[in-house]
């Protein structure tokens, strides 16, 4: 578990710029909703209220609208799968191992965007690897978490064994680490559900990662104006560079600023 705070703070500064792009991001969705139409007759006619003297009355039959869809699929995106789009997913897709990570996440039932959000937050999907704390790779997993996640993933889908690099060398292979990270997300999802956090979101999973399962579930279930210090011991916050007065909403916003529209998506799906 790594909290890359300098990265997080830097992303905050670009929050306004990112939201300013939302209308443009939404525009393609609106475009897909449009359906072309043709008429098999004349358009609706306006009937004159007062007919002009000496002019014969002409009735034009009203046409009916024939609609034709411009396409039946979800679009023509460049991705290799049907994964829902997200800012974080685009970042992971730009990596050489991105497509394989998405395919393997989908095989496990993990939302690829949730997986992408993990690598974006942890390392910018590889751009900021090398914390020197023992965590490795684009997902910055520690050996214990790597092994646990990998075991969970392989138990859920044994066929993924053919995709992984065996042994400790697997931690240096992004495809293998992505499978382990997917397994770890599955664990987080299950634990949060066992605590009563139904359908955990990516933000809920981040609470789990950063503060542990018991504090994470409490943060996911508390009012947004709560200072984190009312839940998590201040010493832990200080060690991770978090101000004791930072509220849950502020923390969630800082996470959302890094992963954009992925924050409120569910972990599975």
């Amino acid at each position, binding site marked *: 578990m790594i909290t890359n705070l300098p990265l997080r703070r830097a992303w905050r500064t670009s*929050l*306004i710029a990112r*939201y*300013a792009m*939302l*209308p443009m991001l939404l525009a393609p969705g609106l475009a897909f909703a449009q359906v072309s139409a043709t008429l098999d007759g004349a358009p609706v006619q306006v009937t004159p209220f007062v007919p002009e003297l000496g002019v014969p009355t002409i009735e034009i039959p009203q046409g009916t609208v024939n609609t034709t869809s411009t396409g039946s699929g979800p679009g023509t995106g460049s991705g290799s799968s049907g994964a829902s789009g997200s800012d974080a997913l685009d970042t992971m897709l730009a990596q050489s191992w991105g497509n394989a990570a998405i395919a393997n996440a989908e095989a496990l039932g993990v939302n690829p965007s949730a997986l992408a959000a993990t690598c974006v937050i942890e390392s910018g999907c590889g751009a900021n690897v090398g914390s020197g704390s023992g965590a490795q790779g684009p997902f910055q997993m520690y050996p214990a978490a790597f092994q*646990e996640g990998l075991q969970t993933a392989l138990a859920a889908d044994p066929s993924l064994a053919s995709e992984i690099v065996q042994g400790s060398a697997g931690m240096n292979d992004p495809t293998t680490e992505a499978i382990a990270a997917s397994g770890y997300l599955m*664990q987080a999802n299950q*634990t949060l559900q*066992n*605590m*009563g*956090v*139904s359908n955990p*979101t990516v*933000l*809920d999973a981040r609470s*789990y990662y950063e*503060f*542990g*399962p*018991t*504090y994470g*579930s*409490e943060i*996911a*279930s*508390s*009012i*947004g*104006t*709560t*200072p984190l*210090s*009312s*839940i*998590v*011991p*201040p*010493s*832990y916050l200080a060690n991770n560079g978090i101000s*004791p007065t930072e509220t*849950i*909403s502020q923390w*969630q*916003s800082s996470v*959302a*600023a890094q992963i*954009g*529209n992925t*924050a*409120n998506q569910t972990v599975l799906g």
Partner: protein
Amino acid sequence: MSLKRIIVSTIIAATCAIPLAAHAQNLTALHPLIGYECMALNLSQQQLMDPSIHVPIVNGPNASAPLVGYASATVIASVSPPTNGFRRVLRLDGVPGWIETKYLKPWVNPGGNGQRCIPSAMSNGRDGFNFQ
């Protein structure tokens, strides 16, 4: 449409979008859960951070009762006296259960900032915590 109008429209759209994207999980409390209080898990900080350690919630006041789920760091506990060494609690989705009293202790604000913890029905339809 003038450039000025386009800019104004964009700013308005962006302003409306911010609460959706950044604060979609900004929970509010609807009302207190009468008859319940906040209690804390009687574990060390290291244990509370350990993903492999779970405090079980079972569906009856005995150790052999089936598992209902796991407890969060703060627990929604009934103010009623324990039964057979178990305190009645609510999971965060409102599912009732029981926790051994040895795992519970009175809730104390870890930050010492004066806020009280009030078990509440939350705006997301689940149960949770209001801090005042």
